[in-house]
């Protein structure tokens, strides 16, 4: 009896090579993820097929719940954190909740466009990339006689007033990277001018990334600034939407990391390698997933027209992304955007509406006084309350960090926020008043 069982085991091992590998792995793998089922299920199934000895357990949590869960379960945490937003990984990394792991897979690009794929310190690994762009509801556009947008700057046009949505950078790590890219690409002052003028047209700043495609899919508003797969997968699901990449777009990575003190470290490593393997990378091409592989050779198997950042230089290549600069002002930028745009959207809308109306009414006939008033109004409604230098100054940005031991507090977040908030309210009200005054200026 005993002998036959041993024989049987030996036979099974001999029959399947992967099973032999699986023997070394633990019998379980616990993954915490904020990805949708459409993405997690195919990967989990394929992994399980390759390693039948490992039972994969997926815990779906939104990013905030996932971080809280990992933080509170330190004594026996899950094995893998698998999500988009790089900031979530940064938080885990700063709190020593991730393990360093150098992936063995060969042929993985270190940069997609100008964006580093992996964490330079090695705590998390990029396994896919996505580009940012504009998605729009074709029925909505037709009903409202809106032209299809092509570039980011198009979204500043008065014709789109009240038709555009975005998610807040404080709520979506990928939107954060896009905002950061605009600021780095155009420079701080010009970047904020673009963001605030665009913001004048926003009808909503959503508190979750998926809120934007959700609203565009329903036709609640017409255009959304979203990550590509939101637009592409909605189109694939039959919604009347289109997605365009502006000629300069940003590329944001999606990551995976092994949690510190994972109970099943070998299975976790095998999973990371699987994501990067040719087999795993191909799953990304699934029409319901639509993410960009980080392995250049995988694109050979992609359908015609699939965006390829390795050959298409407009995808994320134009801006030389400075990761250190971004990290230094990460929390501050989130807060600043919320004060200037998210929480004062009504006021910002009113200011820009007044400017747009005045410019339309006056047209080319505006006299010098009116032009001056309008220029002042534009300036008020499109400047940030602090300079780039101040934003990177640790005595200000330090107030937004979590204190490390030995660090001295430099001021409280609430104090800066109150200052910026009153700045926003005052500037927008003044801008509106100036624009209205321009109409009667002589």
């Amino acid at each position, binding site marked *: 009896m005993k002998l036959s069982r041993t024989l049987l085991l030996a036979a099974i091992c001999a029959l399947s090579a992967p099973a032999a590998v699986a023997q070394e792995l633990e019998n379980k793998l616990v993954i915490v993820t*904020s*990805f*949708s*089922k*459409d*993405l997690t299920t195919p990967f989990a199934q394929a992994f399980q097929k390759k390693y039948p000895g490992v039972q994969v*357990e997926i*815990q*779906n949590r*939104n990013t*905030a*719940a996932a*971080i*809280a869960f990992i933080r*509170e*379960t330190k*004594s*026996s945490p899950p094995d893998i954190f698998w999500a988009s*937003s790089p*900031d*979530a990984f940064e*938080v885990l990394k700063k709190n020593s909740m991730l393990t360093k792991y150098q992936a063995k897979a060969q042929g993985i690009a270190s940069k997609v466009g100008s964006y580093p794929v992996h964490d330079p310190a090695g705590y998390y690994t990029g396994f896919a990339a996505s580009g940012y762009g504009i998605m729009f*509801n074709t*029925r909505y556009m037709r009903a409202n006689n809106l032209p299809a947008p092509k570039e980011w700057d198009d979204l500043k046009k008065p014709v789109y007033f009240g038709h555009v949505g975005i998610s807040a950078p*404080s*709520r979506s790590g990928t939107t954060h990277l896009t905002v950061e890219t605009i600021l780095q690409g155009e420079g701080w002052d010009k970047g904020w001018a673009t963001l605030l003028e665009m913001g004048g047209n926003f009808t*909503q700043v959503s*508190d979750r990334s*998926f809120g934007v*495609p*959700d*609203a565009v*899919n*329903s*036709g*609640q*508003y017409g255009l959304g600034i979203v990550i590509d797969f*939101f637009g592409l*997968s909605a189109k*694939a*699901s*039959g*919604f*009347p*939407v289109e997605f365009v990449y502006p000629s300069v777009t940003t590329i944001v990575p999606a990551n995976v990391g092994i949690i510190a003190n994972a109970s099943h470290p070998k299975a976790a490593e095998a999973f990371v390698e699987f994501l990067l393997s040719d087999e795993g990378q191909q799953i990304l091409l699934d029409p*319901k997933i639509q993410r960009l592989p980080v392995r250049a050779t995988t694109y050979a198997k992609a359908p015609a027209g699939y965006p390829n950042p390795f050959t298409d230089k407009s995808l994320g290549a134009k801006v030389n992304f400075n990761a250190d600069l971004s990290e230094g002002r990460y*929390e501050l930028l*989130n807060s600043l955007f919320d004060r200037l745009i998210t*929480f004062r959207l009504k006021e910002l809308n009113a200011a820009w509406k007044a400017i747009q109306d005045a410019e339309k009414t006056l047209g080319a006939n505006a006299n010098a006084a009116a032009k001056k008033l309008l220029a002042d109004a534009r300036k008020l409604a499109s400047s940030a309350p602090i300079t780039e230098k101040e934003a990177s100054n640790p005595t200000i940005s330090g107030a*937004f*960090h*979590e204190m490390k031991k030995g660090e001295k*507090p430099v001021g*409280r977040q*609430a*104090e800066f*926020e*109150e200052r910026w*908030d009153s700045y926003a*309210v005052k500037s927008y009200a003044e801008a509106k008043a100036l624009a209205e005054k321009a109409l009667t200026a002589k």
Partner: protein
Amino acid sequence: MSAHNLEAPSPGSPLPRLATLSPQAGRGKNWLARYNASPAQAIALAAIALFLIAFLIVPLLRVLIVAFTAPDGSFSLVHFGDFFRTSLLREAFWNSIYVAAMTVALASLIAVPLATILARFHFRGAALVHTLGVVPLVMPPFVGAVAMQLIYGRNGTINLLLNDTFGFRIPFMEGLNGVIFVEALHYFPFILLNLSASLANIDSSMEESAQNLGAHGFTLFRRIVFPLALPGYVAGAALVFVKVFDDLATPLLLNVTSMLAPQAYLKITSVGIADPQGYVISVIMICCSLGAMLLSALTLRGRDFATTQRGGGGLSRRHLGRGGTALAIAFVALALLISLSPHIGIFLLSIGTVWSFAMLPDAYTLAHYVTVYREAGPLIANTMLYCGLAGLIDIVLGATLAYIVLRTRLPGRQLVQQVAMSAVAIPGLVLGIGLLRTYFDVKLPFSGESLATFWFMLVIAYAVRRLPYALTAATAAIQQLHVSLEEAAESLGARKLGVLSRIVVPLMTGGLLAGFVTSFATAAVELSATLLLVARAPDAPLSYGIYVYMQAAAGRGPGAALGVIAVVVVAIATYIAFKIAERERGLKTRELF
């Protein structure tokens, strides 16, 4: 305190207590008698206090402590100063108060006539209407929001229809007024349930006596019906106020951030922000909610709502004339149609292919139900199990606590009540983090599984957060019940337990039912604590299943299908509960005639 204190009028009752005449007085040496309590009651109060300390106070303090911690780690109230110095938060504070108060007004406009019609007139299918009146409470996460936008949104069914026909739109879903509109539709059942329970407890003989004395119409309403039903109305209205004040889902759905709950939520859940303001706002919300509940208790103070009548049967039912019937039916139908349209929307989503910028879906299919068919079973079973248990825990704890608060003078009883009520203001995420922090390292015997991720912790989280509903309902029910009924039974020789099971519990059925139904129905769609505490897919309830689907465009249909299932499950459970209550009431009425 000396023994003659027992003769002092007890709170809520202007009559001298008969307690001194009851057998209890004979046990004067018992120190508990000073508090007019039995040992069992003292133990029960201690047990409830322990439960709250373990699963509410300790977990909460472990999270909220940062609100009182200065940047250098010492105790400080500086963050509270910041709160009041921040104009955005001051604005948010007043907006929250305004929205909560206006919602109470609007919800009353829907609920009071509905409850009156149902209680006063012969109405076919009253149980069905009662059930449908609860359904608005069941707003499945995400799906409900999408459906709401598709019906009432800027380009929802109604506005597209209005725009095509008349060329204008109504901003149902915009700004603070939008929040008030949606909240009223969502939470009016609190008033309906509690007021109906109160109305059902009014004895028709009270009315008849008044009529014999010449009271009619409005006088009858003002002097008899309204005062006697006040505890139920106030209980419901207070719950609406507090719930709306603390509600997060609706402001987020409408993207209104200038209110307290979304401000707290955005701070707490934003990744990487170490700002304690989110927790400060939570503390302030808890204080405000307690204040509101105290205020509602004050409005009832010094009045007696108890009747010595049998307490059942409800108002005398009248037959409506033809015109009256038509009017009543029209009102009920309209109120239900407006408040249930999100659910109609969810249903359409679940059977529609694509629904985008259109009055209705493009085409219809059953495919989404096929998609969820396999996994729906365990999700439903888990939801029933968790929410059923949570509802039961809530009515047992709520009724016991309400009874102790109103019938004894045990020290600390009101404090325990306040603590229990404070749960209404606690964000699910905060409680979830607290429970994980406190219980993750506590291992279960045998399996070695962590207590925090064991499924029963979800039951506890649901029960703690919904205890205020059951407590409020039970308090209103006991306020209507005159103590002399119990004392009469006791003087006839009935034991405490007998009095409870033969007198108190049967006469409270309506209130207990209202408490159970609200706890159960709202727990069935809870998401924030669920997302944190569910550790394994097989343990997951329906709300988790909905969340998982609603993260992708293709998941909208299946998510809506699960949403419909959640609504139906709650509706069936509620309907059965009302049928039981109706039968009980019928039995009582027959016995006495």
